[in-house]
């Protein structure tokens, strides 16, 4: 029963795809083709990320994470979060397990949100591509506007979630 519940989204999607295929076989085929592509994407990104997090879990003491990006880390913590987030490549969902490990190891909520934001919107490999297609003016203006908004949103979320208890305790623990 619990297994069924865990797979409810997947089952729902399968049913919809099946119905779609009955209605229009080419749309069904297209959905399966795109699914295969994304599945391959996720399977070539997530397993190594999870292994890296496992290694981080056993080798990096909590104190190191806490000192560098924890509640008392100040500007240094913000800069490290931005640096790590923007040096990354790959889709945002690959950042989720990393950010969760960061939070679990004592990173501050603001820094975790800043890390996710920079990974999402201003990672350097992506900026390169943006410059190529949209030009320096566009890219740098967007960067200059987005970065402060990301930092602000980190502290906003930290304050808003603190009043409800921190994200670790609101985190749904189901297995």
């Amino acid at each position, binding site marked *: 029963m619990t297994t069924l519940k865990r*797979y409810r989204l997947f089952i729902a999607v399968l049913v919809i795809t099946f119905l779609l295929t009955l209605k229009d076989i080419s749309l069904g085929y297209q959905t399966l083709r795109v699914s295969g592509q994304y*599945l391959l994407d996720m399977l070539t990104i997530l397993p190594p990320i999870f292994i890296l997090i496992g290694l981080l879990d056993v*080798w990096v003491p909590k104190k190191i994470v806490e000192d560098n990006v924890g509640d008392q880390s100040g500007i240094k913590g913000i800069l490290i979060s931005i640096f790590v987030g923007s040096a990354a490549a790959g889709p945002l969902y690959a950042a989720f397990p990393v950010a969760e490990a960061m939070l679990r190891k004592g990173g501050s909520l603001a820094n975790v949100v800043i890390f996710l934001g920079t990974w999402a919107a201003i990672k350097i490999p992506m900026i390169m591509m943006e410059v190529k*297609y949209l030009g320096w003016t566009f890219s740098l203006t967007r960067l200059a506007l987005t970065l402060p908004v990301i930092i602000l949103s980190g502290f906003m979320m930290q304050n808003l979630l603190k009043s409800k208890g921190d994200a670790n305790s609101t985190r749904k623990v189901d297995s």
Partner: protein
Amino acid sequence: MTFSIILFSITGLLLLLSFLKSKEKTKKALTIALKSFLNILPVMLGVIGLISLSLTLLPPSSIVKFFGQINLINTLTVAGIGSIMLIPGLIAFPLAAALLEQGAALPLVVIFITTLMMVGIMTLPMEIKFFGRNFALMRNIIGLAAALIVGVVMGVILA
């Protein structure tokens, strides 16, 4: 693809180092990795299905008509589509450039690509699984607001 190759190489190297230093700890790390992966797998499969369905039913080429005029409906539509879709930068930037070339309004294009990057309704089930509902919803709502602000300000600056 290059990203995956680098990622696999770094992971392999660190795994080897870890193994040479301590078999025990490496085994523990791999157990943690496997457990977290299996934990997210059901949601991940569902999210892949959601993304594929949305891309099939709402192909990127079908959205061009919303980028011409700046009005409330177009702004909300563009922000909504950007929040739902999950297009990699490799496709999103050429698309944005093509839109601008065809005379799309700059703020709408900025809102579109910023929501694409910062808001992920499709991956929300995964995000909730990792961080809980409050965190995930709040991050996405703030991301949407951020996209609107950045879009409007950029429109004013670069007009």
